[in-house]
């Protein structure tokens, strides 16, 4: 059976900067896949390319049989592929509930209420603050809102770009527990992280990205035990 998401030999440029150099990987239904790598390795660029915000000049990408190379950015989410971008990118001037409504932009009106209940179950704090302006939330709450907003589209695959960035350790634990719970409830996860230890601890497989190339791919537990990975990304 073909993988849920297949990325095959993509190349992405920012002007003359060659940021992604022939990256390939795949995500199977039900998995948590983690894409790790140092700052500037090309993780964000890869996700932006899958979401159609950037274009690859070569290769192919498909999601559940749909050719992503030919799908414009605003048509991706309705395929069941949602993206929680780096830095959260919530709509600061809107309140929590309006942000969630934006997440459900492509959804029929009838399913919005139920989706919101599911989001509030995972993130009770968002329910308490449903009428608060998003820009005034704390960093952790903003990350929860960004995730909740993405969940409003009923995604089959959720791409998360550094959800732990800038959060206190206790909040990081909380966010990772929620990621695990979402996966258990049936959402496939593509997790991008600099926090490799955390990411690999919940993933089934992982890919290591270095200066625009996949240099290693393996079962997550093998990567956690790999000496060079330990030295480079896991602090010894």
């Amino acid at each position, binding site marked *: 059976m073909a993988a849920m998401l297949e990325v095959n030999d993509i190349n992405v440029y920012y002007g003359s900067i060659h940021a992604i150099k022939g990256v390939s990987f795949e995500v199977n239904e039900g998995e948590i896949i983690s894409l790790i790598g140092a700052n500037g390795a090309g993780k964000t660029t890869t996700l932006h390319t899958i979401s159609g*915000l950037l274009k690859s000049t070569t290769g192919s990408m498909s999601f559940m049989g749909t050719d992503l190379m030919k799908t414009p950015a605003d048509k991706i989410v309705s395929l069941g592929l949602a993206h929680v971008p780096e830095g959260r990118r919530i709509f600061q*001037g809107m309140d929590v509930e309006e942000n969630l409504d934006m997440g459900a*932009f492509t959804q029929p009106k009838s399913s919005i209420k139920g989706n919101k209940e599911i989001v509030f179950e995972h993130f009770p704090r968002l329910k308490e603050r449903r009428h608060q302006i998003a820009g005034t939330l704390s960093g952790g709450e903003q990350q929860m809102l960004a995730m909740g907003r993405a969940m409003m589209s009923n995604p089959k695959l959720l791409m998360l770009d550094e959800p732990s960035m800038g959060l206190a350790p206790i909040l990081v634990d909380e966010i990772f527990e929620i990621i695990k719970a979402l996966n258990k409830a049936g959402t496939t996860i593509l997790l991008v992280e600099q926090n490799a230890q955390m990411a690999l601890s919940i993933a089934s497989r992982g890919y290591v990205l270095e200066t625009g190339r996949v240099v290693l791919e393996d079962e997550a537990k093998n990567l956690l035990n790999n000496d060079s990975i330990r030295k480079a990304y896991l602090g010894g």
Partner: protein
Amino acid sequence: MKFLSNLINGISLGSVYAIIALGYTMVYGIARMLNFAHGDVIMVGAYICFFAIYSFNLNPVIGILMAVVVCTVLGVVIEKLAYKPLRQATSLAVLITAIGVSYFLQNMAQLLWSANPKVFPTIINGSIKLFGGELSISRTTIVIVLVCALIVVGLSIFVNHTKMGKAMRACSEDKEAAQLMGINVNKTISMTFAIGSALAAIAGVLMCCAYPNLQPTTGSMPGIKAFTAAVFGGIGSIPGAFIGGILLGVLEILGSAYISTELKDAIVFLALIIVLLVKPTGILGKKIHEKV
């Protein structure tokens, strides 16, 4: 009583500025560009209504509707042809293009309709007398203020409570994130130009009802004033455009009544400079988060 009469006239003129400023501010909020051709769309709207009434003897309401339709299409076409290809260009290139479009519209109007001023027909007759006839308010003035109030309320409801309105706000905050939500940014920008241009048509007709002199340059000064009003109130803000427009109109009329008719424009711009010195983002403006 004289003061009250001036004040009412100021609010009426300010209402016209406000309607134009709303178009400026919405387009800026979403496309992050100053559409300097906006004032000339007003002029086109006024001409369409003029010919509908004068040459084709149509009912003024039909004339206004035609002006709205033509300007809506015009606004969308201008955006598609002139601005959309420049989405990635520097803001200076876009600004110069907008000025070019402005001159293009003025010259086209001159070519089609000649530079001779037309006298706009009277659409709304009569006036209301209050305080035993001491205060007389023309019905035109009343209609202008009411239409402006309706537009502001309607637009606020649209932007704050409808799905499309919220999508517009999302685009104005973060276009990439909006696309990740499934919002078509190009369509949203088109719609903003459509709404702004429809408002410009209404403003053009209302303005010519109050000041019935119509020529190809008719839109340019009100356009600049409305731009000033939008900056005054905080560019990008709908309530700001409304407040800025009204303040500007009142300042202009009171300034010319009590200080100097010749200096009325100077007074208006002086006030703008003072406001911007005290609050650089305008009265209701928010800090714009520049994305890296």
